[in-house]
């Protein structure tokens, strides 16, 4: 069995954490390992994993491949896949590779499964673990056909660090594009509230935007408290759909967008800890907590969803008061 590890390089020419983890997944399958890299330059990234045991390194590089554009990335990945002729292609589920993985699979006649959380050999066959219905259930699958193209989620496999000196065979990948990447829009440092590598996820629920005990809404105070907590903890901010929808209508926290949404129609972040505030813990939201380690919640309702076995600790209290005090303690 020949296994191709396929990844893009980062802006600095190196390999990202997700890519090194995907290499760990590919290596774990055994068989002959081949590495394929694309990006503006690939030598630095190839050297970073030169000692991984790969028998061959392929690369596609140049200015055309500096940015994450479907046409050029798909051409590069296709060229590498065809040159490698692998039975299994393992790639990280980054936004850049997720954009092209299925299209490339189609071009090379491969079957595809994405965002796997497990990949192992069992009785001589590859067994993949994947989730269905937005993390509501998981299953194990096998494919009887090859090639099989898979992408693997970050945080599920041990990264490979194996620096050395790699000899890379460069491949040509002609590009004919009608599109170009104009810019990457990054929130200002003080407005950055989504932090994938943070140890803590803080979720703000709809309660922050509702009338409080005095019959009044305190949206400005809610915004100040949430941002203060994020500042004190460097946590990543998530939200329930209902609060994001309120914000879209201009009624609640102005810094929330749909990108903060966690759950059935949002993201499924991975953080060691999660703190839910003013959120009821309904199932469509909590499915997005599938990969959060320790979970705590603050809610006025002792019978909310978090109390039904979804959190480790539920504090029945007013989140406005608790968060204000918590920020004082953490500063």
């Amino acid at each position, binding site marked *: 069995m020949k296994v191709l590890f396929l990844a893009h390089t980062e802006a600095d020419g190196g390999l990202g954490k997700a890519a090194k983890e995907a290499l760990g997944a590919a290596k774990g399958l055994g068989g002959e390992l081949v590495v394929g890299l694309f990006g503006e330059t690939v030598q630095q990234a190839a050297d970073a994993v030169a000692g991984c045991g790969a028998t061959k390194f392929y690369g596609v590089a140049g200015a055309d491949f500096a940015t994450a554009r479907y046409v050029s990335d798909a051409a590069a990945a296709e060229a590498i896949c065809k040159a490698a002729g692998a039975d299994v292609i393992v790639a990280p589920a980054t936004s850049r590779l997720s954009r*092209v993985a299925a299209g490339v699979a189609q071009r090379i006649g491969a079957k*595809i499964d994405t965002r796997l959380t497990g990949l192992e050999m069992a009785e001589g066959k590859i067994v993949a673990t994947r989730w269905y219905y937005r993390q509501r259930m998981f299953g194990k699958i096998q494919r009887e056909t090859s090639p099989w193209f898979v992408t693997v989620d970050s945080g599920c496999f041990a990264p490979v660090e194996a620096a050395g000196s790699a000899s890379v065979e460069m491949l040509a990948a002609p590009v004919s594009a*009608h599109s170009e*990447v104009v810019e990457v829009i990054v929130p200002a440092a003080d407005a950055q509230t989504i932090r994938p590598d943070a140890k803590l996820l803080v979720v703000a629920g709809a309660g922050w935007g509702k009338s409080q005990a005095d019959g009044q809404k305190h949206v400005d105070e809610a915004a100040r408290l949430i941002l203060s907590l994020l500042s004190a903890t460097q946590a990543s901010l998530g939200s329930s759909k209902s609060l994001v929808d309120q914000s879209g209508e201009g009624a609640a926290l102005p810094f929330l967008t749909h990108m903060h949404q966690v759950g059935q129609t949002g993201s499924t972040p991975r953080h060691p800890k999660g703190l839910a505030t003013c959120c009821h813990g*309904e199932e469509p939201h909590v499915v997005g907590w599938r990969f959060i380690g320790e979970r705590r919640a603050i809610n006025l309702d002792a019978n909310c969803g978090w109390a039904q*076995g979804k959190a480790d600790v539920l504090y*029945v209290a007013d989140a406005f008061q608790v968060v204000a005090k918590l920020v004082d303690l953490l500063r």
Partner: protein
Amino acid sequence: MNGLQIVVLGSIVPDPLQTLEPVAGPTGPALKNELMLPAVLDPWAACALFEAANLAKKVAGSKVWLVALGPKAKLQQVMMSVAQKAPFELVVLDGPAGGFTDAAETASVLAGAVGKIPGLDKGKLLLFGGWQSASRSTGAVLSMVGEKLGVTEQFQGVDEIDLAKDGGFTVLERIEGGCYQKSHCKGAPALLGWATGSLPEPPNNPQVGMQNMRFIMPALAKAQPAPLKGEGLKHLGVEVPSQRRETRIVKNASVDDIARELADWIRA
């Protein structure tokens, strides 16, 4: 036709509020009482449909098709409400819409259906859909359909499109860390896998509903069967994770005590 030609791919999923339980079916895993579960149009596909209708409204002579693969009877129920939201013409493939089907096989039948739409100019095609479904969640089908139809300008996780008068457009795609990638494309054919988009759900419009129903009922009547065999794909088992936690409920504690306990937990 001088306007936009937008084909939206989207199907039905169980209402997110339903409890889902996998069972072993004769052809592989399925959901318990699958045909009895209330269904909705897949949320991100619905965003794609609403964005398509909004674009079509801006360019005279434009047309929107919704191509849906699913059990005919369930599609009919869901279309009764979806049809009131935006004008479109429905193309139906009568087959399974569950999450356990194979992406490549699904893409193959959908591409076939799009290719057979009368009067569709593939050179002007804007292919829309959700960037992931709420069932299979692979984010693969739309892209594969695009490749099969020769649409190689593809964008995923789109939240915004800005159409220029010359037919070119700018899109914002979601990338890691809450950032957006802004790209410019010279024009159709192109594929956009939508995330949430930037539009609210349109209100029900009975007039639009009545217009749509003139086409929806005939489309359902002539739905092509699309059985998916799942060849080469073997499910070894599907289960709901048992993650029920022993929740400690802290009542009647002072704000100071709770904050102190949380601070210790966060610092640990």
